[in-house]
């Protein structure tokens, strides 16, 4: 036993130029950002206004920034895989040896699901839900900050694995026995498990927070059937987080016990049962799909209604469909392994339940269609993403129903057909929605709109690139190509894989357009400024306050007497042809006090996770003690709110009138 456990210099892959090059670029990027921040004297500002902030809007923005940065990392992994598979055909071995390639596809999946898709939807919910509910913050603001920073800890640990040690070589779901110590003795699986355990706690707390917020902190008058649809989808998504993530936590705890203490949950010997892992993994894993997809459906609903100038068609149907998906998502997990050899009746049952989920999803597509029908559709960037989603997603759904047929699934499971399918639903279903939401709510968050032209260019690159990248995989899948293949001897697949590679490059062009879009928008922010707080002629309460909203969101809690409360208000004003003149007595508002507890806890979580991965027990003890001490200090603090005086509220409110054009 040494002081540093299993850690020594051999953990750093100095002999691998690709890894070291990436690490070098990342280090340079981090150092230059940090030194820029320090030299410009932004450290204090960042600490006071962002890092310790418990404001749901700031936390939401930080989630999305984190997700977008990780999107670059995940995409880099993706394009590396495409390149490897494109060139390693026939006798060629490509440029990535198996032990490296295996880490890349595992990291790609893990990062894209947990550190891109999850933070994107959680970030959007953070920013939007309290504003739409007419609330001043979430139920537990400090816990919200802890959730975010624990997610960031998971991100940090995953990325550390690039420079120190290795990542899992098991695929992103780490099936045992492959992920057991016997077959994966390295630290890769431990990195995977501890990063996801730590960020998983964050996600769970987030779920608790938002369920409570949505059910208990709505503006007066906002009954359940008056909630905006995005809030309904957020409620469904967070209920799923609360009910699904603990399964993952328990499951990973079991695998950790196997790996660290010699337990036998999933081992090959002593009665362990690896298929139990597979079952429990997908008991979490399928609801997880809807955790991601449902909020995106909510975004599409908001975008479709706003830019059609109509209320959402069939609101009650949409709510029913959302909650139906929420419940049904627990009845389908076995379709991820029809090839396990379950009996025909079990396969048939899960096949049919999987298809039944298609019913409420289909209803949603029809309702978006009828929302546009009779509307005045403005083809803004969010609308492009929405329509792009609709026409793409239905085909992803089609291949999904094919995979839900056990007899077809046996032929295409584990193939790149499957890879094409889940990218076909998750990219339009989650990523398009998140980008639509990002373009839609950006002016609310920062007070200026994003550039339309670059936004549209990004959409077309993504849309075309997506089809080029994934349609060929359906073909090679049907030709019998399994997923996760480091090289192949079948030359017939290669032309298709090269087309897919071109598609990935076109998507990359889309990403570049998005980066340019941000830069251009910041430079032209004065032209793009939103002074009204309502740049899109919106319908829901978030547009009834200033852009960006003050820390307290609403000077006076809005009263709601129907769906689309803000729209209804504007209609009344238009009908009366005069602006309301009634004055209101402003009261002082208590807002939660900023707290470093999230950041400090997360720091200790990283220390603990890193120590456990490398078996540095003293350091793990130190990390746990530190985290406990931080939480104790938080428990004993005396003041957790600051009061904003009524004058300040009034001053801000008068300076930021929400204009209704007459």
């Amino acid at each position: 036993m040494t002081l540093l456990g299993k850690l020594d210099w051999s953990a750093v892959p100095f002999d691998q130029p690709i890894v070291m090059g990436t690490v070098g670029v990342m280090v340079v990027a981090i150092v230059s950002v940090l030194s820029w921040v320090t030299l410009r004297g932004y450290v204090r500002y960042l600490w006071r206004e962002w890092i310790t902030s418990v404001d749901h809007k700031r936390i939401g923005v930080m989630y999305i920034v984190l997700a977008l940065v990780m999107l670059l990392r995940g995409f880099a992994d993706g394009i590396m895989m495409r390149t490897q598979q494109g060139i390693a055909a026939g006798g060629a071995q490509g440029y990535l040896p198996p032990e490296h390639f295996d880490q890349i596809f595992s990291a790609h999946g893990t990062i894209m699901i947990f550190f891109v898709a999850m933070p994107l939807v959680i970030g959007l919910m953070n920013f939007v839900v309290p504003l739409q509910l007419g609330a001043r913050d979430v139920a537990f603001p400090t816990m919200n900050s802890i959730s975010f920073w624990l997610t960031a800890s998971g991100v940090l640990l995953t990325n550390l694995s690039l420079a120190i040690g290795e990542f899992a070589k098991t695929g992103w779901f780490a099936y045992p026995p492959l992920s057991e110590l016997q077959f994966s003795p390295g630290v890769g699986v431990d990195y995977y498990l501890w990063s996801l355990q730590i960020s998983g706690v964050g996600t769970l707390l987030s779920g608790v927070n938002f369920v409570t917020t949505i059910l208990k902190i709505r503006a007066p008058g906002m009954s359940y059937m008056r909630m905006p649809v995005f809030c309904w989808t957020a409620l469904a998504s967070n209920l799923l987080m609360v009910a699904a993530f603990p399964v993952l936590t328990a499951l990973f705890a079991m695998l950790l016990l196997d790996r660290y203490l010699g337990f036998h949950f999933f081992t090959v010997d002593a009665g362990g049962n690896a298929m139990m892992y597979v079952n429990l993994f997908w008991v979490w894993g399928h609801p997880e799909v809807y955790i991601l997809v449902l909020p995106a459906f909510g975004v599409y609903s908001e975008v479709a209604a706003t830019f059609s100038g109509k209320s959402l068609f069939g609101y009650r149907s949409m709510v029913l469909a959302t909650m139906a998906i929420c419940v049904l998502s627990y009845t389908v997990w076995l379709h991820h392994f029809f090839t396990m050899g379950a009996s025909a009746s079990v396969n048939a049952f899960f096949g049919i339940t999987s298809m039944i989920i298609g019913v409420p999803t289909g209803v949603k597509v029809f309702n978006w269609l009828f929302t546009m029908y009779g509307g005045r559709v403005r083809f803004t960037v969010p609308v492009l993403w929405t329509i792009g989603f609709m026409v793409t997603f239905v085909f992803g759904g089609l291949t999904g129903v094919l995979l839900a047929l056990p007899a077809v699934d046996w032929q295409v499971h584990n193939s790149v057909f499957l890879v094409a399918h889940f990218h076909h639903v998750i990219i339009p279903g989650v990523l398009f929605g998140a980008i639509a939401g990002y373009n839609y709510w950006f002016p609310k968050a920062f007070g200026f709109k994003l550039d339309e032209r670059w936004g549209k260019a990004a959409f077309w690159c993504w849309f075309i690139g997506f089809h080029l990248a994934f349609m060929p995989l359906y073909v090679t899948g049907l030709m019998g190509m399994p997923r996760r293949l480091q090289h192949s001897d079948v030359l017939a697949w290669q032309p298709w894989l090269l087309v897919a590679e071109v598609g990935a490059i076109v998507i990359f062009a889309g990403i570049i357009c998005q980066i340019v879009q941000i830069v251009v928008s910041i430079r032209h922010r004065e032209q793009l400024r939103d002074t009204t707080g309502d740049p899109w002629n919106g319908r829901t309460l978030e547009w009834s306050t200033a852009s960006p909203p003050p820390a307290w969101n609403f000077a006076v809690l809005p009263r709601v007497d129907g769906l689309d409360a803000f729209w209804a208000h504007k209609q009344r004003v238009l009908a009366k042809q005069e602006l309301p003149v009634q004055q209101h007595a402003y009261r002082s508002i208590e807002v939660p006090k900023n707290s470093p507890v999230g950041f400090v806890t997360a720091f200790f979580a990283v220390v603990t996770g890193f120590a456990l991965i490398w078996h540095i027990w003293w350091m793990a003890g130190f990390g746990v003690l530190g985290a406990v001490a931080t939480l104790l200090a938080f428990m004993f603090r005396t003041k957790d709110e600051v009061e904003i005086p009524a004058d300040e509220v009034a001053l801000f409110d008068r300076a930021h009138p929400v204009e209704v054009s007459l």
Partner: protein
Amino acid sequence: MNVAVEMDAVRHGELLDISEAGPAPKRIIAGFGFWIFLLSDIVMFSALFAGYAVLAKASAGGLTGAQLFDQRNVAMETALLLLSSYSCGMMSLAINSQRYLATFLGAVVTFLLGAAFLALELNEFQGMIALGATPERSAFLSAFFTLVGSHGLHVTVGLAWLVLMMVQLSLRGFQDVVLRRLHCFSLFWHALDIIWVLIFTVVYLMGVLP
């Protein structure tokens, strides 16, 4: 002119529906949030139960539940934990009427009963390990120690929490924030009972079925 100002005037009538009443008070929010957290905790236990149910017979030639479980010991553990829930309930009553002495007394009794439960459980574990029935021996024992041990860990956390709450109570008195936390604690303690009843049934009673 803030739009909310005007909206405020839209409706002066009585709010009939509870769902339209506006933001709930902090006490309700904290308790409700903790309920949701407890639900998630119960989901976590249900995954551990599922694991145990799958592996309950996988003793891999080692000792089985029927050979290991001592019903008398388990009955005593159950009695202790249920009694501690009762004393926790008494403590809640004392808190509601803001009586310091009764609250501390309730806490001390709850703590002692909980600690006795833990001692018995650890003693049981020790006895099993002495017989060679360690968690490394078989999948059944892995699942057993994980499930029952997780509950024990929760009890330990509960005891530490109780001590902290008594410290806070003596420092701050019956402040709102202390009351909210005490309320959450009692929810937590009762939830552990529910889980224990399930463990008692699924592990110890069904474990000795022929």
